[in-house]
């Protein structure tokens, strides 16, 4: 099993009030699954995504990733796991504006400590795999929204992570470009990657194999997607 969540809770202190974002999540995700996490705003899906992406740690419960217990690691160990195991794709792309496509894709490899030549080759391959071989030296503001998201996907892929974690990846794109991005995800899934997609759009979620619906910090339903393949 790739991911095992056991009784995950998360509380926030807002002033004097304690807000419970997750109140006991139990969920397993296996290798090469394609999962959508859905839910209205306030359902806890962002919090769950942050915990899955090792950006945050749960207040209680256990999170095993590749059988490593990561629920109580320190900041730097979490950074390392984000670097090696997780590839993020964000709604707003989150590329560095002053770096070109190639440099953006190289970034995770820099933090991994790879030498420059090796970095460049891997980053080029990743960009080529999302169809941007001819846009490597373009800065984000010289690229269309779809192209930016593809750079972000290349950056997520470049370290060969265990999970690709996409947060509303088509939210800022028109539906045609969104479909292109979803096709890329499908391709990645077919190539053996594990993809977790956070979305509030049924239509996007239906591209996946499995939909986990959250409400009020609990899993409301966990079912196979009917539109899946």
């Amino acid at each position, binding site marked *: 099993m790739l991911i095992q969540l056991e009784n995950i809770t998360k509380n926030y202190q807002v002033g004097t009030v304690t807000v419970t974002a997750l109140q006991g999540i139990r969920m397993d995700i296996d290798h090469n699954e394609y999962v959508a996490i859905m839910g209205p705003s306030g359902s806890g899906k962002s919090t769950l995504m*942050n915990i899955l*992406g090792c*950006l*945050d740690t749960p207040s209680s419960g256990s999170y095993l990733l590749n059988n490593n217990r990561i629920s109580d690691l320190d*900041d*730097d160990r979490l*950074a*390392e796991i*984000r*670097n*090696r195991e997780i590839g*993020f794709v*964000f709604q707003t792309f*989150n*590329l*560095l504006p*002053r*770096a070109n496509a190639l440099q953006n894709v190289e*970034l*995770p490899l*820099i*933090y*991994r*400590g790879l030498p420059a030549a090796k970095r460049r080759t891997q980053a080029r391959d990743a960009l080529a795999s999302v169809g941007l071989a001819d846009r490597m030296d373009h800065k984000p503001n010289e690229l269309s929204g779809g192209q930016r998201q593809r750079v972000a996907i290349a*950056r997520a892929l470049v*370290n060969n992570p265990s999970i690709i974690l996409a947060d509303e990846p088509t939210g800022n794109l028109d539906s045609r470009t969104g479909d292109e991005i979803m096709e890329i995800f499908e391709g990645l899934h077919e190539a053996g990657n594990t993809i977790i997609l956070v979305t509030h759009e049924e239509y996007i979620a239906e591209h996946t194999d499995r939909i986990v619906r959250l409400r009020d910090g609990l899993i409301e339903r966990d079912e196979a997607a009917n539109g899946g393949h």
Partner: protein
Amino acid sequence: MQLAENIPIALTAVRANKMRSILTLLGIIIGVMTIITMQSLITGLRKSIHEQVTALGSNVFQVQKFPAIHTGGDMFRKYRNRKNITLKEYEAVKEHVTAAKSVGAEYWMGGQELRHGEHKTLPIISVCGGTPEFIDNNGYEIGDGRFITPQDVDHNRQYVVLGADVARQLFPYDDPLQKEIKISGRRFEVIGVLQSRGSTFGQSRDTYVVIPIGSFIKVFGKERSLNITVQAISAELYNTAMEQTTGVMRVVRKVPPGEPNDFDIFSNDTLIEFFDNLTRYVRIVAIAIASISLLVAGIGIMNIMLVSVTERTREIGIRKSIGAKRRDVLWQFLIEAIVLSEAGGVIGIVLGLTLARLVALVSPVPAAVPIWTVVLGLLFCSAVGLIFGVYPATKAARLDPIVALRFE
């Protein structure tokens, strides 16, 4: 992650806000420029003064009536009543100072016009009545012919050795040796020409002639004070020679114990010491100005780095989300602060050097930049960047990636 990876990142960030960076750097630029300019000029002056006072040969000091350096208006009046130094003291020093290798005597007469046939010099030539020790004790070398010998002195021969400039003025086309020149109406035969010593502060050091001391007395009389030059046997015996000489002079001149010397000792170090004392305060003020402006610059850098961290909160979030550790972010901003202040340091050094060159160009003050000031200046800038960058960089490193990613 390698630390060096941060340098291009830092350069990009500094370049992205050119105007802001330059304004921030003004303090550092001014501070470093001040240090470099002042150091360069002071060192240049010191060096040229050093060259000038090595007029004396090595391990040589000179006993004279007046202090070498006159400060304040009343100095002359104060020393005028001193007794002239005479040949009696010279003989005594020569006899009793055991640490001396050679002791020379010199009478000087300035403002002379020398003639050779049609040619004459400007009336600015100094005539020295000297002993054979002159050449060694003053650090000269013979260029042509020979110098005055003990026999020339014993027999009061009418011989003269010319400074290089005098030889050039009186004998523009022919060889001066064995020719006759006139000093104050008397005939002297040229037996040698000294090698040129060049000039310092635009003043030639080759505008005099040397004749045997007895011949000098015959021409100009001896109603003047003698200079005694003493060369110590070795550098180790230099101070001994100086103490012995002081003792002998005090005995011969009957200076009561406890009274100050009624003569002065001038050495190669005299002017240097004087100059160092004089410039000590200039240096202190320059360092104070530089320190204050570096402090202000440091605060400016801290301020701009805090702005930069806030502006780039989202970038920090992105970097953390894809695997940047705390220390990666810390070093990224520390190195950015150091690069920023080093940029100011380099500009300040270039401007300082240019300014020193310019001053050297329009004035007789030479410029010389000791490499250690440049190195020290750059180290100082790094230190400023490091010290004032720590707080902003720590702030950046501690950002929560989730909060940072949400930052608009």
